[in-house]
C-alpha cells in the first residue's frame, strides 16, 4: 500500500469515528472510545508521515470523488509529509489529552463527532492535490472547527465568536477560490499538476500571492485578518483550542507554502516585501495584544498570531531570496519558517493543554483570579513553564533554535540586490527581535500571574492537579520541546527534502557536524549548539549546587515574606496581569491601542477611593471591521425599506427596469 493510501485510510478511520460519534456521542463510554480511536488513527498517520518524510519520494492516489471530470487527487510529497507530521502529532497529543480532559465535558455529543472530523479534514487539506479537494477539505476543516467553537453554545460570546470565525473563514476560502481560479485559467485546470506546469505572468503571480495572503492569511491569523482568532480559539474546549492554534494555523501556512512556493511560478521580489511587512506587523501587534490580555486562553491565542507573524517573516525571506536566486539563503529562511511551524505546534499545544488544565481546575480563564497554582498543580505548572520558556525563545529550547535560524537568514540580507529588500529585511529583523522580547515579557506575565504568587480566588486556592492522560500529553510535548531544542540538526535535515523541492536548495547536512551543532550556511561561519548549551547549563548549575551545598551552607528556614517589612494580607494586592503589563502599555499602548489612562482622584478629605481607568482600542477593529459592519448595516437598513413598499411602488420598479432595458436597447450600437 502506498504511503498516501495509508494516510487516506487513517483519514477514513477518523471520519468513520466521527460518524460513529454522532449517534453514540452522549454515552459515557463514547469519550474514551472516540478519543482512543482518534489517537490510534493519528499515531498511525504520524508514523506513516514520518517514514515517508525520511524515505522521500512522492506517492499519489486518485479517488473518483470531488470534481467529476478530475477526480479527487491526493499526493504525499515531502512538504505534505512534513505538515502531516505536524498535524498528526498535534492531533495525537490532543487526543491523548482529550482522553482525560474530555471526561469533564458537559456536552460531549457536541464535541465528539466533530473532533475526529476536524482531524481528518486537516489531514485531507495537506494531502489534497487538486484545487477542488483542497478547498473542500479546507472549508470542511473550518466547518468542523466552527462546530467545536460553538460546542458550548449557550454562552452568547461563543456563538458570536463562531459567527465571526466562520464568516472570516468563508472570506478566506473565497479569496483562495479566486486564486485557484486564476491559477487554473479559463479552461479549468484544477489539478495541482496542471497548475505547476503552467506559466503565470507576473501580474497573475502577484494577484495570486495577494489572494493567498488574504485567504491563507485570514486562516492563519495574519494582521489585519486576525480578529476572529482570539475570539474563536479560546471559545473551543481546550484540546480543540490547542488543535486550532497549534495545528490548524499551520495548515493555513501549508496552504500558503503549497501555492506560493510550489504551484506559482516565481513572484517578483517586491511581493516578498508585502509578506515581510505583514509578518513583522503581525508578530509585534499579536504579542502586544497578548500582553494586554487577562484571559489566559486569549493571551495564548494572540501569541499564536505573533508566531504566525514570525513564520511569515521566514516565508517572506524565503520568497525574497528565491526571487534573487540565492537558493541556499532561501533554504535557510524556509527551514527556519518550517522549523518554527513545528515548534509552535509543540509549545502552543502544550500551553493550551496547560490552560485547559487550569480552566478545568479553577473554572476560570481570568488570570487575575488565579495565582499560586504552582503549589496546587506542580506537574502542570512545570510543563507549562517549559512551554513558556520555549515560546519565549529561550535557549536551549526549540523556540530559540528556529528564531536563531530566522535571524541567521535575516543576516544574509546584504547580499540581496534589491535596495528595498536590503533596507526592509533588517528593519523586519528588528521587529522580530522586538516581538521575541515582548513574547518573553508576555509569558513571564502568563506564568507569573497564573502559577506564581498567592491565589487570588477561592477557586485558585482549591485547585487540584489534572488527570494522568492530560499530564502525559503535556509532558510528552514538553519533552519534545526540549529535544527539538537541543537536537535541531535532525529537524533541519528532515526538512531538507522540502526545501530542496520548493526552493531548489537545502541547508548543509547537519547530522555530520561535529558535536551536533547546527550551521546555517557553512561550517566556520555562524553556528549554534543547543545540546552543549544545555549540558553546560546543567553541569554548571549542578556544579554550583553541589559545591555550595557541600562546602557552604544548606540551612534553610521558612518564614513570612519580607516585602520590605510589609506584606498586605490580601492576595489582591499582588501585581495582577493588568498591572504587570502597565509599563509596557505605557510604552507601546498609546501608539498600538490608543490607550488612555484616566485617574479619578477625589479631593483631600473625600473618602472615596481613587480610580484608575484605562481605555484601549483595537485599532484594526475600529479602522477596518467596524466600518465594514457599519456599512453593511447601513446598506441593509437602507435597502430594507424596499420590503415595505406599496404594490404601486413595486410596479414602478418593474416599470423602471423595463424602461431602463429598453433604453439600453435603444442606444445599443
Amino acid at each position: 500500500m502506498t504511503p498516501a493510501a495509508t494516510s487516506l485510510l487513517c483519514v477514513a478511520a477518523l471520519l468513520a469515528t466521527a460518524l460513529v460519534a454522532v449517534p453514540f456521542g452522549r454515552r459515557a463510554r463514547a469519550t474514551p472510545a472516540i478519543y482512543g480511536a482518534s489517537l490510534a488513527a493519528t499515531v498511525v498517520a504520524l508514523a506513516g508521515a514520518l517514514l515517508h518524510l525520511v524515505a522521500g519520494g512522492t506517492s499519489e492516489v486518485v479517488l473518483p470523488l470531488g470534481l467529476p471530470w478530475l477526480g479527487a487527487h491526493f499526493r504525499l510529497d515531502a512538504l505534505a509529509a512534513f505538515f502531516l507530521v505536524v498535524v498528526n502529532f498535534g492531533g495525537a497529543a490532543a487526543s491523548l489529552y482529550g482522553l482525560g480532559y474530555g471526561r469533564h465535558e458537559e456536552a460531549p455529543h457536541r464535541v465528539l463527532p466533530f473532533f475526529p472530523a476536524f482531524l481528518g479534514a486537516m489531514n485531507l487539506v495537506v494531502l489534497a492535490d487538486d484545487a477542488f479537494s483542497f478547498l473542500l477539505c479546507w472549508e470542511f476543516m473550518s466547518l468542523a472547527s466552527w462546530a467545536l467553537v460553538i460546542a458550548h453554545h449557550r454562552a452568547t460570546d461563543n456563538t458570536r465568536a463562531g459567527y465571526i470565525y466562520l464568516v472570516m473563514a468563508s472570506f478566506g476560502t473565497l479569496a483562495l477560490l479566486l486564486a485557484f481560479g486564476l491559477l487554473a485559467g479559463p479552461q479549468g485546470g484544477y489539478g495541482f499538476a496542471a497548475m505547476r506546469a503552467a506559466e503565470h505572468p507576473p501580474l497573475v503571480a502577484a494577484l495570486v500571492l495577494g489572494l493567498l495572503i488574504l485567504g491563507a492569511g485570514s486562516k492563519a491569523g495574519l494582521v489585519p485578518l486576525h480578529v476572529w482568532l482570539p475570539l474563536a480559539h479560546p471559545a473551543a474546549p481546550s484540546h480543540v483550542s490547542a488543535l486550532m492554534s497549534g495545528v490548524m494555523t499551520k495548515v493555513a501556512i501549508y496552504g500558503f507554502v503549497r501555492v506560493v512556493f510550489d504551484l506559482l511560478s516565481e513572484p517578483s521580489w517586491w511581493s516578498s516585501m508585502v509578506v515581510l511587512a505583514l509578518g513583522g506587523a503581525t508578530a509585534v501587534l499579536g504579542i502586544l495584544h497578548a500582553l494586554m490580555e487577562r484571559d489566559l486562553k486569549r493571551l495564548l491565542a494572540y501569541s499564536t498570531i505573533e508566531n504566525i507573524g514570525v513564520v511569515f517573516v521566514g516565508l517572506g525571506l524565503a520568497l525574497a531570496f528565491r526571487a534573487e536566486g540565492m537558493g541556499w539563503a532561501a533554504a535557510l529562511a524556509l527551514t527556519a519558517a518550517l522549523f518554527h511551524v513545528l515548534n509552535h505546534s509543540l509549545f502552543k499545544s502544550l500551553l493550551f493543554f496547560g490552560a485547559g488544565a487550569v480552566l478545568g481546575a479553577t473554572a476560570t480563564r481570568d488570570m487575575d483570579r488565579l495565582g499560586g497554582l504552582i503549589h496546587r498543580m506542580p506537574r502542570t505548572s512545570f510543563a507549562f513553564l517549559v512551554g513558556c520558556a520555549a515560546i519565549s525563545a529561550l535557549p536551549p529550547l526549540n523556540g530559540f533554535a528556529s528564531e536563531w535560524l530566522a535571524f541567521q537568514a535575516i543576516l544574509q540580507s546584504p547580499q540581496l540586490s534589491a535596495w528595498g529588500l536590503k533596507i526592509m529585511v533588517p528593519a523586519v529583523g528588528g521587529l522580530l527581535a522586538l516581538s521575541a522580547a515582548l513574547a518573553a515579557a508576555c509569558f513571564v506575565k502568563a506564568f507569573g500571574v497564573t502559577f506564581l504568587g498567592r491565589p487570588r480566588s477561592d477557586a485558585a486556592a482549591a485547585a487540584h492537579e489534572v488527570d494522568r492522560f492530560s499530564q502525559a500529553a503535556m509532558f510528552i510535548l514538553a519533552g519534545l520541546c526540549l529535544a527539538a531544542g537541543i537536537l535541531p540538526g535532525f529537524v533541519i535535515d528532515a526538512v531538507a527534502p522540502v526545501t530542496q523541492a520548493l526552493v531548489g536548495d537545502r541547508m548543509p547536512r547537519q547530522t555530520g557536524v561535529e558535536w551536533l551543532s547546527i550551521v546555517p550556511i557553512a561550517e566556520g561561519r555562524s553556528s549554534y549548539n543547543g545540546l552543549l548549551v544545555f549540558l553546560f547549563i546543567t553541569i554548571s548549575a549542578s556544579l554550583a549546587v553541589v559545591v555550595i551545598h557541600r562546602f557552604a551552607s544548606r540551612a534553610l528556614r521558612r518564614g513570612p515574606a519580607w516585602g520590605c517589612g510589609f506584606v498586605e494580607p490580601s492576595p489582591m494586592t499582588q501585581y495582577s496581569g493588568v498591572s504587570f503589563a502597565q509599563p509596557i502599555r505605557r510604552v507601546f499602548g498609546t501608539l498600538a491601542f490608543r490607550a488612555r489612562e484616566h485617574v479619578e482622584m477625589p479631593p483631600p478629605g473625600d473618602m472615596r477611593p481613587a480610580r484608575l481607568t484605562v481605555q484601549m482600542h483595537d485599532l484594526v477593529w475600529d479602522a477596518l471591521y467596524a466600518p465594514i459592519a457599519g456599512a453593511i448595516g447601513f446598506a441593509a437598513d437602507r435597502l430594507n425599506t424596499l420590503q415595505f413598499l406599496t404594490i404601486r411602488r413595486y410596479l414602478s420598479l418593474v416599470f423602471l427596469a423595463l424602461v431602463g432595458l429598453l433604453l439600453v436597447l435603444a442606444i445599443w450600437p
Partner: protein
Amino acid sequence: MDGLIFDIAHLFAGGLVLVSFMLLYQDRLYALLNIFALHAFVLALSVAWQALVQAAPHLYVTAAIALGFKAIVIPVALHRIIQRLGIHRQVETVVGMGPTMLAGMGLVALSMVVMLRVTPEADPLAREDLAFALSVVLLGLLMMVTRRNAVSQVIGFMSLENGLILAATGAKGMPLVVEISVAFSVLIAFIVIGIFLFRIRERFDTVDIGALDDFRGERK
C-alpha cells in the same frame, strides 16, 4: 390597396395610442371609465379590421370580446363598484398631469426608436403596429404606476392588455390569439372581483406602513 389597408390599420393603432394619452390625461373617475370604453372600442375596431384583412374569422371573436366585455361589461361593473364602495371620484395622481404626459411622450418616442431598429425589410405593417402596441403597453404601465386609485390602476392594466391584443392581432397568423384574449379577460375579471371582495377602496397601497409591518411579522 395595400396602402389603404395599411393606412386604416395605422389609423386604428394610432387612435389607440391617442386614447391612451386621453386616459393619462383624465382626472375624473367616471370620465376615465368612459374613455376606457372608447379605448376598448377602438381596439375592437382594429381587431375587426385585422380579421377582415387577414381573413381570419376567429379574430372576430377577439373583437367581440373586446367590445362586449371590455367596452361594456367592465366599465359598467367598475361604475357599480365605485358607487358601492363610495370611492373618491377624483383620480389621485402621484406626479402631476404635465410630467406624466411628458413621460408618456418619452415612452412613445422610446418605443418608436426601439422599433425603428427593426430592419425595414420586415413587414412594415407589423413594424408600425408593433411600435404603437409597445407605446400602448408602456403607457398602460405608466398609468399603473402613476395612479393611486385601484380603479384607475385596473384601467391602466387593461389598457396595457389592449396593447398586447393589438400586437397579437397585428402579428399575422399568430395562433392562440383568441385563447389569450379569453385568458386575459378572465384575469381581469379576477382582478375586478378581487378589488370588490377585498374592499380595496382607494388604492392598492395601504398608506399606513406601520400597519403593514405588523402584518408581515417584520420590524417588531
